[in-house]
């Protein structure tokens, strides 16, 4: 017989939920969660009931109705006879367009500015500091207004291009026109077009697909070719030259295809009140883009500066000891390490820029807020539905950016060994 007895088996009692420290924490959390949920549920049901009492139950069928209004800047087919859902889609694409353009430009300017901000040249670094302080400390809406109104005031009106001796003229062999309505650029056209594929919500041009496929094929070939060259180099010590072959493989098929399809540039031309033809980048888009870019750049400059300064000084000293020149030290030693600090800040700046793009409504750029949250909302009177949809869409965009950037961050972050 063993005199060792098992520890007394504890009977679980309800009172332990409150008096036992092991369970109390969980009890409190569940209780608070229930409280919060019921509070939110009460608010939601209150809103639904009140709306129903006002005779406006929440319904989304207005999205299928004819929109009836026109949109100036659009990436896909749209007319006033399209539906509200289509108008929303056009607005969404416009939001994404300006967000993408803004993020790209702000990143480039921000990285350059951040490096200049740390320049040893007193004047250069002070100039950048001045720029940062001026642009960061004034609301972005004002910068958008400044950019838009400066552009429309300085650029010539389309009618200035008219007449025998026009006051204004087009650039680049009469193919680009700067007007206060926007910039008109030549568009790629084909005299022997292949047509479009309708993928349901928009048309995809076959010409573009062909050229893209050929380019991608060429790049794959070039990589194989490089691998082959590396193998031969490993075996024999001599690396066969690949540059010319690769360039030809990437470019030639596309060029031949373009010639075969009869590629030419459609130049914009003055017709009536405005330029017709070509790709039009409207003044509102330019104003918004510039405003958002100039504003967000300041934050990216600061992010880059702080990232660079966070890299231990010993790193640059070590690089100098190895005989690396300052430029190479920056590119090869400092920036790769600074990236892991910069990128999380970049994510939030990208998100900010995307959300700030909703200020477009002030200067007539038809983004998501101007279409769904503006004219559609006003024409249909469906405030609740439109605002809920808007929030859901912005949330989706923001989360997508966040997921993408976090994935990139995980790739470049310093791996601890």
């Amino acid at each position, binding site marked *: 017989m063993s005199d060792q007895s098992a520890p007394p088996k504890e009977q679980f009692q309800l009172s332990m939920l409150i008096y036992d420290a092991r369970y109390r924490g969980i009890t409190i959390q569940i209780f608070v969660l229930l409280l919060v949920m019921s509070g939110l549920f009460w608010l939601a049901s209150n809103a639904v009931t009140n709306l129903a009492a006002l*005779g406006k139950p929440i319904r989304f069928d207005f999205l299928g109705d004819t929109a009836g209004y026109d949109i100036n800047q659009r990436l896909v087919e749209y007319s006033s006879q399209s539906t509200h859902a289509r108008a929303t889609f056009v607005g969404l694409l416009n939001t994404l367009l300006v967000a993408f353009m803004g993020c790209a430009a702000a990143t480039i300017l921000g990285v350059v500015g951040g490096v200049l901000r740390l320049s040893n040249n007193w004047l250069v670094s002070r100039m950048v500091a001045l720029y940062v302080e001026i642009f960061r400390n004034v609301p972005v809406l004002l910068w958008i207004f400044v950019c838009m109104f400066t552009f429309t005031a300085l650029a010539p009106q389309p009618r200035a291009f008219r007449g025998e001796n026009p006051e204004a003229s087009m650039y680049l062999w009469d193919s680009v026109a700067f007007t206060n309505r926007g910039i008109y650029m030549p568009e790629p056209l084909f005299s022997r077009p292949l047509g479009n594929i309708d993928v349901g919500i928009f048309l995809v041009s076959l010409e573009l697909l062909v050229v893209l496929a050929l380019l991608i094929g060429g790049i794959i070939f070039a990589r194989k070719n490089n691998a082959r060259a590396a193998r031969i180099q490993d075996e024999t010590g001599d690396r066969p030259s690949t540059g010319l072959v690769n360039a030809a493989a990437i470019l030639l098929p596309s060029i031949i295809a373009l010639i075969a399809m009869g590629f030419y540039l459609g130049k914009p031309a003055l017709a009536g009140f405005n330029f017709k033809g070509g790709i039009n980048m409207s003044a509102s888009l330019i104003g918004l883009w510039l405003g958002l870019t100039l504003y967000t750049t300041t934050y990216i400059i600061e992010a880059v500066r702080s990232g660079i300064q966070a890299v231990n000084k010993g790193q640059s000293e070590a690089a100098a000891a190895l005989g690396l020149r300052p430029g190479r030290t920056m590119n090869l030693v400092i920036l790769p390490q600074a990236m892991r600090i910069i990128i999380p800040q970049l994510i939030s700046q990208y998100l900010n820029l995307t959300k700030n793009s909703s200020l477009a409504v002030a200067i007539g750029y038809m983004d998501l807020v101007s279409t769904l949250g503006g004219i559609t909302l*006003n024409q249909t009177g469906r405030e*609740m539905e439109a605002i809920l949809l808007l929030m859901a869409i912005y949330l989706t965009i923001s989360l997508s950016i966040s997921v993408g950037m976090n994935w990139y961050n995980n790739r470049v972050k310093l791996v601890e060994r």
Partner: protein
Amino acid sequence: MKKSVFFGALAFAGLAAGASSAATLDEIKERGKINCGVTEGTLGFSSRDAEGKHQGFDVEFCRALGAAIFDDPDAVEYVELSSKNRFTALSAGQADLLYRTTTWTFSRDVDLKTSFVGINYYDGQGFMVPKSLGVSSAKELEGATVCIETGTTTELNLSDFFRVNGMSYEPLPVGGTTEAKALFEEGACDVYTTDASALAGVRASLKDPSAFVILPEIVSKEPLGPTVRHGDNEWEDIVRWTQNALVAAEELGVTQANVAEMAKGGDNPEINRLLGAEGSLGEMLGLSPDWAVKAIAATGNYGEIFERNIGESTPIGLARGLNALWTEGGLQYSPPFR
């Protein structure tokens, strides 16, 4: 996702809780003021003067209501609403009524659960262009860039007009009158479009009004009038009949100057009923018998309000046109007071 839906609901619940459909008049009496929704600034219709006081055609109707209810034309709180948030503000109870150059349309009346109780101005959408453009008709506007103030019926009329005439155009929809005006002056658009009445106001406020012309075409019907929430018929009656009283006063020759004299009673039974010397029309509305006298004494009759704020002697310079009395070839007509 879920979270933000709930927060949106939260925000709306707060608003919606303020809205109650019944007994607007009781609420107003308790508050001591009428919350009158007006525009953020349309010269002639509602704008602030140098001292920051609201003035204009629409404002006068609010003042008349203040006088009819409280015997004090200043017992009005002006709620400035954009064309976008006006219906939300009305249905949420932020404003008791709109005198906000709001067009009476089917969907607004039926689908938005608002009631239009009269027409204080018969308007229509027009176009303004710089004289230097050399355009004399809206039919010559093929391909033009058009500045629009968003959140109005304007976008649809514009789209319809150009579609019917087989023309194309570039819309430039702008959030506010000030911005739209600035863009138009800088030449970012060729044409400025809005209701003809507001257009006259915008033109008058430009740096050089004489350099711009308003084209003869009126491309839509825009009956502007007061708007209230569905469901409170007593309040609806007060708004409707106060406006009617001002129109009837013009027809019957009652003016701001002679109303006190005429209120003592005379030979014309209709005037007597209107001014409370006979019958009990005021009590039926839940107001004092001389409610119309107070209103007319505060603002004058319809014609006086028109001439003082937007008439031909003012910088706005609008002719009576459709807004003349029916006896003079216009459309302004009040149902009888009996």
